């Protein structure tokens, strides 16, 4: 049995707004093991990023707070830690890469300094040792001539290189868990391929657990072992990548999969190019959720029961290493 490095249990994160209390993450549970990758997918506003910020305990206060749940890192509940203790974990044991490499680097410091800073803070190395560790990290993430680049400023680097710097910074303290929030969304496809390959290589080398947050199902299919599909703050489907992409059961997951061009061939050997299937409408506001299933107004196979009580997340099949859960009343 592989160790579950991180376990999130019934996490509920709320924000108070003028319109009332908003549950951005509502009863979300998942876990990730060492050396494995968990993909969290969903569209904007479904709660993916708030989930990751909750794990890092970076929810902006006082408007937001974690109302209930547990975040177990190697068995220890992060929510019970003092800010001081949390600071020792953040960036050291659990690291995060943000979407926008442009805005998450400080423009007035060299990239070498910014990476060293994290190392000095957590590992008690001297600035000089930290600098050579930074150069090592740059080498590891494939930045050419790292000894020279270490003294450059963020604006001197391309988007792909900046994202590598972010990864180097996140990995500098050899974290056990890496949370990557849309790490390749701002990048071109060929650069995306480079970064995804890099993440996979590094994961194999250092055996960390990776949580990959993305709206791109293609990226999840290529990189992740397990997947969590979120919709309006809820987990709506969960299971192994193999199972979910082969047998998506929740209508939202199916819709997501079908609404993107698949680039498959028809019987005549030409690209399939009919109309795309769409999910009608838009994600409901978290302040005015419908009673019952949150997806009901956009669902093509909605039943009377969908408008009653909200369906529970239930197990529909399981094998030795994964369990397939859906939040849907239908038996498909």
């Amino acid at each position: 049995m592989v160790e579950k490095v991180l376990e999130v249990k019934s996490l509920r994160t709320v924000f108070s707004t003028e319109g009332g209390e908003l549950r951005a993450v509502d009863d979300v549970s998942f876990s990730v093991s060492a050396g494995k990758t968990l993909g969290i997918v969903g569209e904007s506003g479904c709660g993916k990023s708030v989930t990751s910020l909750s794990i890092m305990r970076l929810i902006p206060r006082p408007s937001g707070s974690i109302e209930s749940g547990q975040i177990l890192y190697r068995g220890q509940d992060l929510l019970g830690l003092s800010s001081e203790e949390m600071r020792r974990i953040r960036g050291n044991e659990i690291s995060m890469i943000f979407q926008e490499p442009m805005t998450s680097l400080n423009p007035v410091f060299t990239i070498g300094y910014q990476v060293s800073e994290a190392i000095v803070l957590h590992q008690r190395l001297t600035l000089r040792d930290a600098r050579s560790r930074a150069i090592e990290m740059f080498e590891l993430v494939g930045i050419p001539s790292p000894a020279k680049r270490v003294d450059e400023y963020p604006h001197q680097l391309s988007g792909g290189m900046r994202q590598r710097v972010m990864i180097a910074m996140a990995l500098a303290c050899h974290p056990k868990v890496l949370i990557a929030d849309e790490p390749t969304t701002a990048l071109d496809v060929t650069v995306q391929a480079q970064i995804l390959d890099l993440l996979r290589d590094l994961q194999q080398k250092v055996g960390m657990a990776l949580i990959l947050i993305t709206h791109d199902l293609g990226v999840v299919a290529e990189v992740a072992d397990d997947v969590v599909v979120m919709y309006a703050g809820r987990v709506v489907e969960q299971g192994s990548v193999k199972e979910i992409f082969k047998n998506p059961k929740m209508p939202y997951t199916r819709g997501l999969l079908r609404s993107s061009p698949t680039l498959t061939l028809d019987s005549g050997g030409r690209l399939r190019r009919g109309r795309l299937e769409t999910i009608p409408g838009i994600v409901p506001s978290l302040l005015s959720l419908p009673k019952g299933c949150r997806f009901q107004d956009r669902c093509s196979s909605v039943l009377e029961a969908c408008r009653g009580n909200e369906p529970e997340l239930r197990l529909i099949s399981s094998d030795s290493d994964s369990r397939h859960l859906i939040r849907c009343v239908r038996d498909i």
Partner: protein
Amino acid sequence: MSLTLGAEVILSVRNLVKSYPVRGGLLSREIGSVQAVSNVSFEIRKGETFGLVGESGCGKSTLGRTILRLTEASSGQIYFKGQDITALGQSDLRKLRRQMQMIFQDPYASLNPRMTVESIIGEPLDIHRLCRSKAERRERIFNLLDRCGLRREAISRYPHEFSGGQRQRICIARALAVEPEFIVCDEPVSALDVSIQAQIVNLMQDLQKDLGLTYLFIAHDLKVVQHISNRVAVMYLGKIVETATADELYLRPKHPYSQALLSAIPIADPSRKRERIVLKGDIPSPLRPPSGCYFHPRCSRSREKCQLEGPQLENDAASQDGVHAISCHYPG
């Protein structure tokens, strides 16, 4: 897509160059130039969708804007329905804009937040004096809203009251107001969520069928471009490196850059394992483009000739439909 091959040529671009001066030194004198679009030629036929793909900085957006004369070409010709439009004066240009319109990437930035939907869609009608009475103007706006899948009560609302997908529908309605024949679509779905992308792509295809529109579809997302386009051109550092029908390009890409680009698309099917070509390094700076073939420093097939001599875009003799052209010394 043989049906479009017989159709008349609506737009023909010949040896188009767009260069920007580079200033430097004490007196900000011109010390060089950057070619954003470098000697590009292609034709678009009536009723077809011509896709233009490439990564950031390859010049695809500049090319689109130059065709509409939103930026002036440095040299070369643009023929729209047989007429060279590079030399048109302001009043002729205004008349031309009735036939050529544009849809931009960011539906948040391309709508004036202080204007109602009525004045946004009505403005082009007023500029071109297309309505004789207030009632007629309103009727036309209602029709455009219907056509683009918006409710009629949207007419008195402001852009911030709409979601991203709805705003892009407003942009499309505005572009259609003057009944153009040709629309340049610059990344029209890139800013939207997957399920909304599909809605907009379908809408654009429906409009094309009903109104006989011709599209120049610019995007970095190959999946969407392949899906919507009849023919596709791949750009790299200001040049077209390959052009073919969407099927041909997908099934038999010949240029090493197109091959890498296609192999890098993440596909939402874990059972489809593909050989991925991961390019080394970054796109070179257009300020100092490499010698010979611009792609040679990143190319696995590069030989001596590639460093010395830039290849021309030449028709592939082996292509089945005669429209496959490649700019490579060693295609394959």
